[in-house]
């Protein structure tokens, strides 16, 4: 599994494209990918404001970018349904990170067991394969019956959604450890535990980080669902209550905030990858 972290700002894949050759032969440096992406965003914003200011679409369905910006400002200062934007974001982040901690603490050992031992694979595979295809919304009611409507059930549902990617990517990472690396350690007299700690875990680390990124993605989609039930704070709750009162600008503002936070997560994840596993893209 290889992860591209070469160009940090553009999130787009940086593989070779069909049109690249044509650009290079034109005797000028190719347009940076960031600029093309920025142009797309600008064009979309322009079309959006055009559509709303000429009244093509009712503001009830699509408020203007300015209205959304003002909604964002008032969200940040005065808030919405008894909490400021920072409080909503804080509540959501607490759930996401709480769930991520649970998923990593449970998922990494489980993935190591699946990847490194036949017994572990035999025991855990059916559980993971049962959980993996289930949509979190399907088991949300059950988790609420078990854990109540408090924080615990929300964190549990998000953690359950995060578990399969963490477990599977850890197991894949374990299997990607090179036979020579393992044999070298054995030849130096390493015990099974030492091989696991000094060879298998570092070999699996790039894949575990990729799994964590996928898990965060799954976490965000589950978060919104989990916050629909008996929450009083959180971005998902904010969007949902705004929708019930048809406050569309707050709905859009909430979506934009979620996208921005997820984007920052992605950037942070890439920085962490560069720092923790700089070898993953070299060699």
């Amino acid at each position, binding site marked *: 599994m290889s992860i591209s972290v070469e160009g940090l700002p553009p999130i787009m894949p940086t593989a070779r494209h069909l049109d690249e050759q044509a650009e290079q032969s034109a005797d000028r440096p190719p347009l940076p990918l960031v600029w093309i992406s920025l142009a797309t965003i600008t064009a979309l914003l322009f079309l959006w404001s055009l559509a709303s200011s000429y009244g093509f679409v009712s503001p009830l369905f699509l408020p203007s970018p300015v209205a959304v910006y003002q909604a964002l400002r008032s969200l940040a200062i005065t808030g919405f349904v008894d909490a400021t934007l920072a409080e909503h974001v804080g509540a959501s982040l607490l759930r996401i990170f709480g769930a991520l901690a649970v998923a990593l603490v449970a998922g990494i050992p489980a993935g190591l067991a699946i990847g490194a031992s036949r017994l572990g694979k035999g025991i855990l595979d059916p559980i993971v394969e049962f959980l993996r295809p289930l949509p979190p919304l399907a088991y949300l009611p059950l988790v609420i019956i078990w854990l109540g409507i408090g924080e615990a059930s929300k964190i549990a549902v998000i953690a359950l959604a995060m578990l399969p990617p963490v477990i599977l990517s850890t197991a894949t990472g374990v299997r990607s450890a*090179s036979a*020579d*690396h393992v*044999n*070298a*350690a*054995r*030849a*130096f*007299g*390493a015990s099974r535990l*030492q091989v696991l700690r*000094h*060879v298998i875990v*570092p070999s699996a*680390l790039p894949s575990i980080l990729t799994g964590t990124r996928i898990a965060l993605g799954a976490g965000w989609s589950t978060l919104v669902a989990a916050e629909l039930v008996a929450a009083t704070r959180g971005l998902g709750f904010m969007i949902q209550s705004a929708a019930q009162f048809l406050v569309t600008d707050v709905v859009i503002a909430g979506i934009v905030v979620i996208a921005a936070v997820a984007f920052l997560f992605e950037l942070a994840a890439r920085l962490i990858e560069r720092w923790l*596993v*700089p*070898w993953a893209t*070299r*060699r």
Partner: protein
Amino acid sequence: MSVLSLENVTLRYAADAGRNTPVLASIDLSIDHGEFVVVIGRSGSGKTSLLNLAAGFVKPSSGRVRLDGAPVAGPGAERAVVFQDDALYPWLTALDNVAFPLRLRGFSKADRLRRARALLDQVGLSDAAERHVWELSGGMRQRVGIARALASSPKFLLMDEPLGALDALTRSRMQGFLLDIWQQNRVGALLITHSIEEALLLATRVIVLAPNPGRITSEIFTTFGRDHLAGTPLSEIRSSAAFRRLQDELTVLIHAEEEGIAA
């Protein structure tokens, strides 16, 4: 004096159970402490399997592998291995790679770093200690790999085509380097190679393997390596009549059976 020996060893891989031809059959080979044994043979003659048996990575289907008379149960620090694809850990620096075997054995950090620095010095890489593996050239990586193998103070150094992936110039420099390392560290060496020239330059004894099943067909004793250590330049050895004659002889031995089939 230590002896590593394979006694009447046959190796059959479980997946090949249906096939009658074993990978290696009736191998009798014993390596003394001060020896440099080079195994050469065509592809499929079981060279790497032979090394894996000596290292303890695989167990013989029948026969025994012994170290100083005691049966070998698995890999062990007294038989260090150098891999063709260096097998250095990319998450460690050159220095930490060399210190790795000492870390496994519970040496204190100061001790293992001091010893690792001395070893890097011996392979001429003191300046590269803090570099990452991906910043090193192929020849440098192999030298780090050899320093790492020496860190556990092995009695035997088992090398699976360690120079196979290097360019010709680096390769011939590394051949002299291997001889120095072998002499300075007083180890028994077992080296696998495809190169007839390399076999003759390094070995005190060359073992020829033939395939189907893998077996030892001949054995040649040479002194070129010792001549070099005594002061004769490698280039002079390579161009000597005696070297060329043995080179031809070895070529015939390796391909003897192939020609037998053709005729």
